[in-house]
Structure formats: C-alpha cells, structure tokens
C-alpha cells in the first residue's frame, strides 16, 4: 500500500508529466505563426502566408505520382504536376477546343495527309536551351520508337520532319482529324529537349518549357518554382508545393485550417456540406469522364441484343448516380457530356422494368439468370454495382458483384473472363477517343466483343473525315447504334470537384481535370 503511494508520487507520474509537458510545448510552438502574413519563400508551416502577388500555393492531391517522365507515366497524379512543367504543341481550352501552345498555327493539306505546324521562336527550356523543331522530332520519336505508353496515339503517323527550325511536318498514312488531340490532348506527349532522356533521369528530373520548374521530388510531395522566362509570361506565384494526402478528412481539415490552399481530395458525399463551409470555395464542373457497364457479347445469353437491352432498361441510372456519386454526376446514355461540341442527345432507355422483363422472356432468359459483375475494389464502381445489383434483381437477374484488385481486373478483362464489368474512361476529348477503339470490331479496347460491320464502317469514315460537321454526323449515327446494341451501357459523367481557400483567384475547374496554377493569386 504505502509502496504504491510513494511510487506513484515519485516515479511514474513524474515521467508521464514530463512527457506531457513536452507534448504541450511542442504543440504550442509554431502554433502562434498562424495568420501572420509572411511573404513567399518560407511557407513551411501552412498556407496562411501569402497575399496578392507571389507566394507559395500549397496544393494537396489525393494520388501519389509514380514518376515524372511524361512519356512513361500514365498516372493522373503525375500529370497534375507535369501539367505545370511541360508544354505540348497545342493545348485544349476549357471547352475542349485546341489552341496554340508551342505551335502558333497549323495547316492541313487538301488530302488531310500532311499537317504543317509553325512553332514559336521565343521559347526557351528551363535550362536555357532554345526550343526548335528538333526537340519535337526527338520527343515524338522517343514515344514511337520505344513503344512507350502513348505510342498508340501516333498509329497513323508515317513521318515527322523538320522543314526548318520553326516548322514541323507530320505525314500521315490516312487522314486523322483527331491528330490535335493525339499530340496535345494531355501532357503525355509533352515536348522534352533533344537528348533529354540521356542527359537527365526523367523519372525524377525535368527540363520543360512550362510555367514552373520541377524541384526534387520527395516521398511526401514536390515543389515547383516559377519559371521567369515562360513564353506566356512569368507565373503570378513564386512556387507551387504539391503534397500527397490520400485521406480526404486530412486534406479537408488542412484546407479548413489554412494549411493548404487547394485540394482535389473531396469524396462526393462531402460536396454538399463543404459548400456551406466558411472560408472554402467548391468548384464543380461536369467532366468528360464516363462510367459504363459492358456485357460480354461472347457469353450466353448476353450475345443476344434483347438480353443486353433488357439490362439497359432495367438499370435506374439516376439511382446509380445518387448511390455511387451522391448526386455529383450527370446521367447520360451516350459517352460525351452535354456542353461538348460532340454531344449527341440520344436516350432511348428509360428505366422500365416491365419492358426489361418482356425483352428477357423474348430472349429466352429465365428468371434467376446469373450475372457476374466485375468491378475494381475500393472504387465508386462498387457502390454503383450495388445499385445495379438491386435494379437487376427486380427484373429477375441475379447479380454477383466480383470485386477485384485492378491488376486482376485488367487480366480478366484482357482474357475475356467475365460476364460483365464496370469501369470508366477518363480525359477523352476527341470522339475518336470516346468511341473508336472501344467499339470497332478490331478496336484495341473492345473487350466486350462488339462486332457490327455498320458501326465499323461509320467509325472508319469518321476517323478520317476532315469536315467537322460531317464528322459529327457520322459519330452521331455510330453512337446511336452503339447505344441501341448496348455495346456499352453508358451510365453517367461524374463531376470534377475541387475545393480551395476563399479568395484564391485565377483558377478554373476544367472538364478534363487538367490543373493549371500559373495565373493563380493567393488569398489576401
């Protein structure tokens, strides 16, 4: 008894109290620099510093870049950073129309086979080297010759030549109206200086022409510094610090406390509550991404169009959007969202369980037909699949949701080992990207086994049609057939949701999720 009393007094509490005191001291340290406006460079503690011109923008992205070689990576997180470091010949504006970037203008020959790009003569890479046509040749040939991830974008390119230092000529094997998208749709076809792959470790270093220079990447983030000689004028801020924050609560708390200025890590269910939050601005834009369901057309009974149409009538898209995206998406029965030039208003499948049941019986599908629905685990696709499971249960189809890690999912998709799968396509701009390889019978992404000679014909014509209106007409026809045949069962276009500190200026949310920070001004 007495032993314990003394022990308690003398030993352990003292130790614990000391530790506690240390914690409190540490907590207090640095706590008092909040709200003190400090200019620019030493913004280690939080995003509160800044004000007006200059300063460091702190952006939290939810993914972690795998590497910074624009030609090698396919990770969106990498492109969020690279968007600010590299340039392409042309660049899509917020409406998806292509504008000059490193190229000032371009012409197409009568037969559509020769494209001539005039290049800017005032562009200098971050290391001081002048930008010329040789750099374009080097960059494109690197992608093509090494069979890199984006080599497919150059499928119709026969030759790339430099007529003079400011002129690049691309010769094609067939007219390719989607060429601008192929070479400028995103930074995967960025221009790097000649010899860069040998001179630099492009996975961790960069020498671009963009508004910011890449700093040393660390495991927790990377900082970009303003490139004063950027051809479009020096950026309005001194630095952009990207932090990788995978947990949404952490990112949103950081935004609310002023530790960061910007984040894309916003779960759909938080959008509404966040919009009421003081000090936080939420930006929402419909995206060009889409979610869809594909039925394996080489497996019974889904080889019959009636059976597929029954599923299309059976799915309540609005419910799927409400369940999976908490409403932060727009239902669509085709791939391309409204507001886009290539949008085609076509929606034949209203939710109609009776119609679905009729179609199933005319296809000879019995009550209790099984359907394995493959989704990638831990994505919003899982919730969407659950809504679809309930919908199809109502028309007598017994759905089993098969959650797979994305590696297994991709293997099974490639091997055709599925009844149905759900997935999304991201960041397409040209209708070729939306429809061709997915629905052409010989298309590289036609895992569902769709084969309609008429569609093949339309897609083939549209791929080479240089008149924009005629081309749209062809894609509209093809889209209708694709929808009618339920090659893909299109579900919805998710919204792009991003949030930033109140008072952050000069930033716009884009449908293609590209993020540009060069014109941003920090809150006062």
């Amino acid at each position: 008894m007495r032993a314990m009393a003394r022990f308690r007094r003398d030993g352990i509490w003292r130790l614990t109290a000391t530790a506690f005191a240390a914690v409190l001291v540490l907590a207090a340290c640095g706590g008092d620099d909040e709200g003190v406006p400090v200019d620019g460079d030493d913004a280690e503690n939080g995003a509160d510093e800044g004000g007006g011109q200059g300063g460091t923008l702190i952006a939290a992205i939810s993914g972690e870049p795998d590497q910074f070689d624009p030609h090698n990576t396919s990770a969106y997180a990498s492109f969020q950073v690279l968007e600010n470091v590299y340039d392409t010949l042309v660049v899509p504006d917020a409406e998806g129309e292509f504008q000059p970037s490193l190229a000032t203008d371009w012409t197409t020959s009568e037969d559509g086979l020769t494209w001539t790009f005039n290049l800017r003569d005032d562009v200098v890479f971050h290391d001081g080297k002048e930008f010329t046509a040789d750099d374009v040749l080097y960059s494109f040939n690197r992608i093509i010759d090494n069979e890199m991830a984006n080599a497919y974008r150059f499928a119709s390119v026969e030759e790339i030549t430099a007529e003079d230092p400011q002129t690049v000529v691309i010769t094609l094997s067939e007219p390719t109206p989607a060429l601008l998208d192929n070479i400028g749709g995103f930074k995967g076809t960025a221009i790097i200086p000649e010899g860069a792959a040998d001179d630099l470790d492009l996975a961790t270093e960069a020498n671009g022409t963009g508004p910011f220079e890449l700093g040393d990447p660390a495991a927790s983030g990377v900082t970009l510094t303003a490139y004063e000689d950027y051809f479009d004028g020096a950026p309005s801020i001194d630095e952009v610090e990207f932090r990788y924050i995978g947990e949404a609560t952490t990112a949103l708390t950081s935004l609310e406390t002023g530790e960061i200025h910007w984040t894309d890590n916003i779960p759909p269910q938080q959008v509404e509550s966040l919009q009421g939050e003081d000090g936080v601005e939420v930006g929402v834009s419909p995206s060009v991404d889409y979610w869809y369901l594909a039925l394996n057309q080489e497996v019974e009974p889904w080889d019959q169009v009636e059976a597929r149409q029954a599923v299309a009538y059976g799915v309540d898209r609005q419910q799927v959007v409400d369940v999976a995206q908490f409403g932060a998406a727009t239902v669509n029965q085709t791939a391309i969202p409204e507001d886009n030039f290539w949008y085609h208003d076509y929606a034949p499948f209203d939710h109609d369980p009776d119609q679905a049941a009729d179609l199933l019986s005319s296809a000879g599908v019995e009550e209790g037909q099984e359907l394995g629905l493959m989704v990638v685990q831990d994505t919003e696709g899982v919730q969407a699949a659950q809504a679809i499971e309930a919908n199809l249960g109502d028309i007598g189809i017994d759905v089993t949701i098969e959650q797979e890690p994305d590696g297994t999912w991709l293997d099974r998709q490639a091997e055709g080992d599925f009844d149905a799968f759900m997935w999304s396509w991201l960041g397409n701009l040209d209708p070729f990207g939306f429809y061709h390889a997915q629905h052409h019978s010989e298309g590289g992404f036609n895992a569902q086994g769709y084969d309609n000679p008429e569609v093949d014909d339309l897609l083939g014509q549209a791929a080479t049609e240089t008149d924009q209106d005629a081309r749209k007409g062809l894609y509209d026809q093809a889209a209708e057939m694709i929808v009618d045949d339920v090659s893909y069962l299109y579900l919805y276009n998710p919204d792009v949701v991003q949030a930033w500190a109140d008072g952050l200026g000069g930033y716009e949310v884009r449908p293609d999720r590209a993020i540009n920070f060069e014109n941003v001004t920090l809150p006062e």
Partner: protein
Amino acid sequence: MSGYVVRRLFQSVIVLIGVSILVFAIMHLVPGDPIRQALGTRGTEETYLAMRERAGLDDPLVIQYFNWIGSALTGDLGVSFRSGQPVMNLITERVPATVSLAAAAIVVALLIAIPLGTLSALKPRSPMDWFATVSSQAGLSIPDFWMGIMLILLFAGTLGWLPSGGYVGLTDDPVEWARHLIMPAVTAGVASGSIMTRFVRSSVLEALGQDYVRTARAKGMRARDVLTWHVLRNALVPLVTVGGVQLAYLLSGVVIVEIVFAWPGLGQMALIAVESRDYPLLQGAVLLFAVIFLVVNLIVDLAYAKLDPRISYEQGAAR
C-alpha cells in the same frame, strides 16, 4: 558471446534466402500483370510486349530469381516498374520518416504500458486495475483510422494546435518535425501500448510473488527501491521481447496511420507496390522487413543477457 552472434547471423542468412524465394514465388503467382497495370486500359499490344521485355518478365522465373538475388547481393535491388527509379533510393528516401514514427510510437507505447501495467499489477482487482484492463482493451479495439481521424478533427480542426498531416524532416526543422509526429505516433503507439500493458501487468505480478522480492522487503528495503531494482528489472525481460516485436512491426510501416496522416513511410510504399504489382519494389521492401525483424530479434536476445545475468549464450556456461 561472439560465437553466438556469428551463429545467429548465419541462421539469419538462411532465413533471408528462404524469405527471398518465398516472396519472389508468391509475387509471381498472385494474379495481376504489372505491365497491364502500368498501362491501364490504354496502350497497344505492341507497347505491352515491348514493356514486358524491357522489364525482363519474359525470362524463365528461375533466371529472373537469380538475376534479382544476384544483384541484391551487391546492394542493387533493381528498378521499380512503376516509378523507374532504383528500389534502393525509394526505400532509403522513406527510412527517416519510418524510423521517426516507429521510435516515437514505441516511446508512446512504453509511456502507456509501464505506468499502467505496473500500477494495475501493484493493486490487482482494484479500480486502477479495472481501469487499466478496460483502457488497454479499448486501445486495442479502437480502429487506428478512426482514432487518427478523430485526433485530426480535434487537435488540427477544432483546436488548431497541431498540423493535420504531412511530414517535415528532422534536419529541416526539428520543431515542425515533432509537431507533425505527435498525432501519428500516438495513433500508432496506442495499440502497441495496449498490448504491452498486459505483458507488464502479468510480469510485474509474477515478479512481485518471487522470493527475492519478499526477502528484499523483509530486510527493510524501501518500497521504491524494491520496485525499481527487483520487480521492474525482472519484469523487463518479457517486455523487451514484446516491445521488440512491436518495434519491428512499426519499423516495417503502419499503413493505415501513414495514409491517414499523409506520412511518407515504408508501409504506404509497400501497399502501393502490392497494388501495382511492382515486383522489384515489393521484393526489396519485404527483404528489408525481414532484415529488420531478424536484427531486432537478435538485439532483443542479446539484451536478455544484459538484463538478466542468469541468461548466457556462452556454450557450456553455467548459471
């Protein structure tokens, strides 16, 4: 002693070879193609084949294994599929954050376990004992992601005392390093501390019942000295064992805590490696984890001899 250490090191090498074969085999047997994963749904068959060849995945498995283990012996763990960077760099870049978190978490765990376990053992079946049992149960059953988020909402959100997440290097700014470390260390340390509390309690109880404690008390030794010199010192041996295992576990990364607090540790890296089937990176990481466990175990065994002179590793040595 040195003979024992040499023997143990030799055994460790055999264990490591076993681990390397096992990891290699399992990774290659698990479904999921790393190249397809890297390409996503895009890319053509030609690109896929070219990338496979570049990654050396077309060689027979045995050749691939010997290529890998051969360079691993020279300290070259290969190049990550996903990031194109040497695995060694990717691992070493995350070591400081991982060691900081593991060390701080173990300190938190000890600060919980030693006082709580001792107090409850000194007065079994008392309200204090009851409190210790319940709180160590709770510490074990509260999921760490929930606890982490609650701490963030309270200490970063409502009170604004601590940063929500992220990591600052010790050499960059020691104060910020510590402030960023507090919440992750508490979150990771509570579970370990709860496990260790039970061990402290039972081993203190056991030591209290020993003859030498009775003798010490009988000869009039002060209660505090009895506790420090006779009870706690003897109770430490099992604690070192459990603490060692906990430390090794913390050193190989606490995935959930790292994700919640945006902490760039080895656990997050290993998780990404598994998800993307990044064979070289995961193999390197698992090999490192195996080394950590072996080294920590060896240190623990050697510490026994220091703590308890009755334990000796000399051959033929008598008590």
